[in-house]
């Protein structure tokens, strides 16, 4: 292993990536998505839900009451069919069919029926489902039997819960898309041949590129942390997980690039592998089976490691099994990558 050679490859890749628009786009994607997500969450407070209301008769006051609620945009229709049509065209998130004499029955103390249909794929329907009962109780003059004091985390603290997810996404995304790009381009343009007839070995190429990938993923992760608030919890543990996680996903990216002949095959393969690697840790709590499967992927150890370090302030002494698992993944991935690259260059 030659440190000068590794640094030369690192510097060359850094200069190339700045001049390569595709790589720049990939690098900026996690940052852009993180900003977009954060701004979407803050906008959610001001959502207005469009609903279609059909009154079968004599309940004008109820329809008017719905219309007076700020978070609803009421569209009065003249038939059930028309209401459904608006729902199917996604012009409204929900429809309310008010039966004849609904208001009068309510006034008399009866329990009339109200027919509501929502489009669960329309995100705004969630807001409607959370508020429609309050709207009816308010119209009936009833009060909620408990005085609830509902609080939420301060805005600055909310985003820190996203940090482990965004850091994991960044590390996987950059490691598995940028690195295959740099290596397969070297293979396609045959610049790798020129490197390998110099004193640089296959190992030097792997380490040089990994160093470059590590630098990028850590840099983008720090930007993500900065965007989402500030660093909290155990800094050393979190950084260790970011570094080991970056190394393993950079290695997986290089392994994919070593096994494939061109960039399009490498990016296809990377995308296929990337999905379960991102989703499994996030869905691990949904079922015991997914939980078991998630232990087979390195992203789980990285995700929970960063989460515990940042949110629970866990130190290395508590997190060493996950660190050990990531270390083993690293050894396996880099041994395989060096073996494959050496074998391929000798064909």
């Amino acid at each position: 292993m030659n440190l000068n050679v590794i640094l030369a490859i690192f510097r060359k890749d850094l200069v190339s990536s700045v001049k390569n628009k595709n790589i720049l786009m990939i690098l900026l994607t996690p940052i852009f998505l993180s900003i977009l997500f954060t701004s979407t969450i803050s906008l959610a407070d001001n959502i207005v839900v469009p609903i279609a209301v059909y009154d079968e008769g004599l309940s004008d006051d109820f329809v008017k009451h719905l219309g007076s609620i700020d978070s609803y945009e009421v569209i009065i229709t003249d038939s059930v069919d028309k209401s459904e049509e608006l729902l199917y065209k996604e012009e409204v998130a929900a429809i309310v069919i008010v039966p004849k004499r609904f208001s009068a029955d309510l006034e008399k103390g009866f329990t009339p029926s109200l027919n509501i249909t929502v489009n669960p794929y329309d995100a705004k329907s969630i807001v409607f489902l959370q508020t429609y009962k309050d709207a009816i109780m308010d119209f009936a003059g009833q009060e909620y039997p408990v005085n609830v004091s509902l609080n939420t985390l301060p805005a600055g603290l909310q985003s820190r819960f996203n940090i482990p997810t965004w850091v994991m996404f960044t590390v996987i995304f950059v490691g598995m898309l940028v690195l295959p790009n740099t290596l397969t381009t070297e293979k396609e343009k045959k610049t790798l041949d020129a490197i390998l007839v110099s004193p640089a070995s296959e190992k030097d190429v792997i380490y040089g590129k990994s160093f470059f990938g590590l630098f990028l993923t850590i840099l983008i992760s720090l930007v993500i942390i900065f965007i989402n608030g500030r660093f909290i919890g155990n800094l050393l543990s979190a950084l260790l997980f970011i570094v080991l996680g970056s190394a393993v996903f950079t290695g997986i990216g290089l392994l994919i690039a070593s096994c494939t002949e061109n960039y399009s095959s490498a990016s296809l393969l990377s995308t296929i592998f990337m999905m379960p690697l991102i989703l499994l840790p996030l869905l691990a709590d949904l079922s015991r089976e997914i939980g078991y499967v998630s232990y087979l992927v390195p992203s789980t150890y990285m995700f929970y490691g960063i989460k515990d370090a940042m949110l629970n302030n866990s130190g290395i002494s508590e997190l060493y099994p996950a660190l050990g698992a990531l270390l083993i993944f690293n050894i396996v991935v880099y041994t395989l990558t060096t073996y494959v690259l050496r074998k391929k260059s000798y064909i």
Partner: protein
Amino acid sequence: MDKAIVVENLSKKYGDFEAVKNISFSIEKGTIFGLLGPNGAGKSTTIKILTCQSPPTSGNAHVGGFNVLTDSAEITKKIGVVFESQNLYEELSVYENLNFFRRLYSSPKEKISEVLQAVGMKTHQKDKIKTLSKGMKQKIMIARALISDPDILFLDEPGSGLDPHSAREIRQMILYLKSRGKTIFITTHNMEEADFLCDCLAIIHKGRIIALDTPKNLKKKYGEDIVRIETVSGEIYESPLNTKDSSDIFKHLSENNQIFLVHSKEATIEDAFIKLTGEKLTDES
């Protein structure tokens, strides 16, 4: 004279296909050695073995006194390679390309301007590679191969695809490098280039070396010098030079004042190649 490269019974198989079959040759230091043959003859495979990019299936080779099987780290410090494809970093400048390879060899920074001066490209060091012509890129390829000041240079089809002017410039550059004491190994399918440049030439056909000598000797051994006589009435007579036939024809026509023009045509490497293989060696081959 010392040997720069020694090849002994070298073979290379890809599955069932034998690309190189038991070839042997040696190259004197400070000379230009050419490996001439059509595409697919085994030229590039031989270069790959000698530059440690691919191990031989059997046999052995020594480059600069080092074994290709065991001493690749030493060999890579002694050689420079100009690849057939112009494998430069297109987005980077000439300087950035050379600076990267300079770092790989731990050569001093001054080497960049030295090699650019040698190939006449010093004024282009800030230009991006993608803006250069093919001939200019080939000069940068040579500059890159020289960045470590190697004793031995491998040039895979150095004149391939270049316009005549650029090809001539590259040939002059190769001769200049020889004058600086470099040993040069060239693969080519261009017979003119091989004849002009090489001190020693091996003709490779279907993985085997079928002739190995100086270009002059190859032409002498396998080609024929021809005399071509055109008469006043437009008839053309061709006959091997310095034979009884050619003397008789000349004598007969001259006595009758029939000679209009007399040409002599020297044997070419192509004649030798055709005689040896029964095939023509063209650029399309």
